[in-house]
C-alpha cells in the first residue's frame, strides 16, 4: 500500500486524531494527536491489511525554544506487506505527555525510556519509565536544545563545554 492509501485507511477510522499528512519527499509523515495515539497504534498493528508488526525506530526531536515544539517520530514497517509509514506526534516543550505503545511493540520499551531520558517526554502507561543511559539521579534532559549541564554530580565537577558552531 502506498502512503496515501495508508493515510486514507487511517483517516476512515480515526479522522479526528490525524492532524496532518505530508507526502513530499524527505518529509513523508502522518501527524497524529497524542491522545489518540494508542488506539491508532493498536489499529496499525492489528488491521490485517496494514499489519505494521515492526517498529523500526522511535526518535525524539526538539524543535527549539523558539518554535516551542517537541516531536516524537515513529518509523513503522510491515514485514508481511513490506510497506512503511512514519508517524509524528508533536507537543509543547514543557510537560509533553504521549501514550506509551510498549505493550503494542515491545521495542518501544527501551526506546521510550531513552527518549524520556534524553528529552523529558513522559510516556503515560509505560510500566517502568526510568532513565536508560544516564544515571537515575542525573538532572536535566541532555538532547534538549537549551540544555545546560549541572554543576556537580555527587561531588564531581561536571565540565562545561561550549559547543563550537563551525562557520560555513
Amino acid at each position, binding site marked *: 500500500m502506498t502512503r496515501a492509501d495508508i493515510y486514507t485507511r487511517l483517516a476512515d477510522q480515526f479522522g479526528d486524531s490525524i492532524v496532518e499528512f505530508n507526502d513530499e519527499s*524527505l518529509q513523508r509523515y502522518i501527524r497524529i494527536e497524542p491522545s489518540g495515539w494508542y488506539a491508532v497504534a493498536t489499529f496499525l498493528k492489528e488491521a490485517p491489511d496494514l499489519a505494521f508488526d515492526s517498529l523500526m525506530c522511535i*526518535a*525524539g526531536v526538539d524543535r527549539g525554544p523558539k518554535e516551542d515544539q517537541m516531536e516524537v517520530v515513529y518509523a513503522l514497517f510491515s514485514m508481511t506487506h513490506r510497506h512503511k509509514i512514519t508517524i509524528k506526534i508533536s507537543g509543547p516543550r514543557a510537560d509533553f505527555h504521549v501514550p506509551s505503545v510498549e505493550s503494542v511493540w515491545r521495542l518501544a520499551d527501551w526506546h521510550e525510556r531513552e527518549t524520556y531520558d534524553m528529552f523529558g517526554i513522559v510516556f503515560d502507561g509505560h510500566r517502568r519509565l526510568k532513565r536508560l*543511559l*544516564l544515571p537515575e539521579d542525573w538532572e536535566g534532559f*541532555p538532547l534538549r536544545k537549551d540544555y545546560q549541564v549541572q554543576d556537580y554530580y555527587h561531588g564531581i565537577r561536571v565540565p562545561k563545554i561550549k559547543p563550537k558552531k563551525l562557520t560555513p
Partner: protein
Amino acid sequence: MRDLRTEEMTLNMGPQHPSTHGVLRLKLRTDGEVVTSVEPVLGYLHRCFEKHAENLEYPGVIPFVDRCDYLASMNNDHGYALAVEQFLDIEVPERVEYIRVIFAELQRIASHLVAFGTFGLDVGAFTPFLYAFREREMILDLFEMTCGARLLYNYIWVGGLSHDIPPGFVEKTYRFLEHFEPKIKEYNDLLTNNKIFIERTADVGMLPRDVAISYGVTGPQLRASGVDWDLRRDEPYSIYDRFDWKVAVGVDAYGELGDCWNRYYVKILEMQESAKIVRQALDNLPVEGDVHAAIPKKIRPPEGANYFRSENPRGELGFYIVSDGGTTPFRVKMRSPALSNLGVIDEIASDWLVADVVAILGSLDIVLGEIDR
C-alpha cells in the same frame, strides 16, 4: 541459624566481568542456579554521540559513527554515508560502490569472527578464539594497508572514500579468501559439531519469531529464528542486488529454530556468503574511476527528515537524520541494532541457569559502544 532465608538471590554481573562483552551490568535475580529475571543496566559507555553530532558538520560525524559499533566501523560508515547521500541525491562512481561493498563485507567477516570467537570463549572453548583472531588479523592488515587504521577507519565518506585502494590490495584479498574459505570447515569441526558445545547451546534461550519481531531484533539473531529477512536483499542499497549470494537462515540441525546454536550458526554461514560477495566484487571491480570525484565540497542538505537503514553485522542500523538546511545536522538519531537485540534478554534468559545467561548473552552479539552510543 537465626533466620535462614531461602528466597531469591540478587546477583550482580557487574560492569567488570569477563563475559559481558563490554561494560554492561546485568542484575540477575536467581533462585538457586535458576535465573528468574535479568535486568540490564546500561549507560556505562554513553558518550553523547547524538549531542556531538548536532555540532559537527556532516562529514565530521563519520569518526564518531565509527566509534559507536567499534567492531563494525566500515558498516557504520557505510550506513551513515548512504543516509546522507540519500538526502543529497548524489551519484557515486561505480568503483566507489564496489570498493565500499568489498570493505563492508570484509568488515562483516571480521565482526562475525569476533562474535564467534568470544562466544566460544563464553562457553569455555579457548582455542576457537585464537583461530578467529588469526583470520581477523589478515583482514585488519588489509584495512591497514588501505587507510592506515586497524579498528576505526573513517574511510567511507559521504560521496566517496578517503583513500583509493593501494596496489597489491586485490591480490592480497584473493589470497586471504583462499586462506579463509577452508577455515570454515575447521571452525565447524572444532565448535559447531562439537557435542559439548551443542549441549550448551542447542535449545537454549529460545526466541520465537513473533517475539523477535515485536522486540525489534534484527540481523543474524532474527534470521536464526526462521525469519527470512535481510536488508541487503529485501531493501537493496548500494549495489548488493548485483551479487549472487544466499541469505543465511536458521537450520533445523541440532536444535530448534531460535536457539543459541542457530544464532551462532547463522553467523558462520554469513561469513561464507560474505566471502562469496567479496570474491564477486573483486572479480568485477572497475579499474577506472576516481574515488574522490563525487565528494561534495560543502554538504548542505535540503530541509527535511529521513530514516535510512542498512544491514550491520549485528542487525538493522538506522539513521534518522533531521536537517534544517544548514551544514550541521539538526538531529541525528542512530537506531542501534544491539540495543534492540539486548532488550529481549529478560524474555529469553529467564528460567535458565546462570551459565546459560552467559551463553545467551554471547549469542546475542552485543557491542556496548553501539548500545550506549
